[in-house]
């Protein structure tokens, strides 16, 4: 088991996972960094993916919830930012894109 744990630890190190562990990150690290840089204290966020909103895509939602604390989710009302994963920002209509990657975007609705 110690050998297995060592191998797992090496995988974490190789993937630069220093905060939370998973076989592979549930969301792109760049998305999390962009969301963190955008959010001011007390501001809120929502996640939208092809799986749905927030808890509809549980694994990614929990992953983001852990990483974005102390900023908390606002899944029912209007959040300060929306994190989009594999969703085009246009679905939010008039929102402004704060940061964007290949398959993600951070949008102020």
């Amino acid at each position: 088991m110690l050998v297995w744990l060592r191998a797992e630890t090496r995988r974490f190190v190789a993937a630069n996972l220093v905060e939370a562990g998973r076989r592979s990150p549930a969301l792109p690290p760049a998305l999390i960094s962009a969301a963190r840089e955008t959010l001011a204290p007390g501001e809120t966020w929502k996640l939208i993916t092809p799986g749905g909103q927030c808890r509809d895509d549980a694994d990614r939602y929990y992953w983001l919830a852990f990483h974005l604390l102390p900023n908390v989710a606002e899944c029912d009302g209007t959040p300060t930012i929306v994190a989009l994963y594999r969703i085009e920002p246009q679905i939010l209509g008039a929102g402004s894109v704060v940061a964007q990657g290949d398959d993600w975007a951070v949008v102020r609705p």
Partner: protein
Amino acid sequence: MRLAFATLATTVGPTLIGMRWIDGPLAVRAGIGGLLGFVFLGWGAMVGGLLGAVLPGAGTALVAAWILGPRLRTKLSGERGSWVAVGVVAAIGSVLLVMSLWRPVAAYDGWAIWSLKAKALAQNDTFDNAVFLDPAYEFSHQFYPPLLPGWQAVAYRLSGNYQRGFPTQFQLAWLWTAGAAALAWFGWRRRPAGLLLVAWAAAPLVLKELMKGYADVPAAMFAVGGAALYLTAREENARVAPAAVLLAGAAGTKLEGAILAAIFAGALFLWDRRRRAGLGLGVTMVAALAPWMAFVVSHELSGYLARDRIASETPFGRVGTIAAEMSETIFNPANWGVLVPAALLMLVLVKGRAVPVTAAVVAFAAIFVVYMTTPFRIEWYLSRSVARVVIGPIGLLALAAATTWQRRGAGAALEDPSRSPGPGTDETA
């Protein structure tokens, strides 16, 4: 630098304070002392969080523990135990401690429940925040007892760094090393059966679940360590207050820990001639949990307990599935080696001591009933939880077998009532 300070301050620090509660060989003082220190620190942080002051709460609890230690100290003889077994534990623990420095909070429940709460508690300095109260965070099982997040929150707060997971991994590796070292020393007068406790602590499944960052191994370690300490202290007519603290720690760490601790206290009440001891354990656990339960009730945090049951599944209709899955997990050599068959064989060959045997049997039964009545789909729930939920009951089984061997080999006085069995004996099952 602050990370290192926070890590050591929440491991070495409480261990030194907990050691004041134990008088005996170094392995037991440091081992049980470590477990005690974590309970004091976590409980203090929990109460501090309820009052909006995590660090003052944790600090006050540690100061109180420092003062009370010599007054409530358990004095154990140095006659038992094996330095070889302790050495094996120290070697494994050293590897875990070193490895933890490169590890994040390693798996789902670790970051989605326990460390999420620790972070929220540390950042807000109170439980009055969204993670504990908002329906958006119901997934973190808001009503779960928060002793472990309390302990981890102190490290987050002292370090000021919320983006590194290794302090919590180091804490867990330290907890395992402390608990396993104590269990190794409790090796019941160097008899081979004493090694069952080391075999339990070092079982592949235990190490794997420990380093995931889940609460099951800490809860089991508090429960089994507390039970072992209680039985040893009773044999030697020593104080049982530290054992009560550990069992309260199990109750404060996880619901399954509360079940194990309550069952052990119930077994004491049933079989131990000193019934006040069982009552005392129960009162200690209730008193330790009362502040948190008041918070849970006042905020109506019921979580999944209030969910509707699955209409297509009945409690008795689940029996076959639960029995098959639990047996597969319990008897799988890849999880436990030969620990379970060896412990059962020992209990069949030698009449077991009633308290630990009853506690082990009822613990398995209680887990079974929990599965029968869970609101989750049973196959899904078993697949996600049974491997770690059985850790505590198997620990009690190993304890029952280990104490049985001691009773047969070294406890002749316990067999023969005319040889003054002393206050530590219990009836036999």
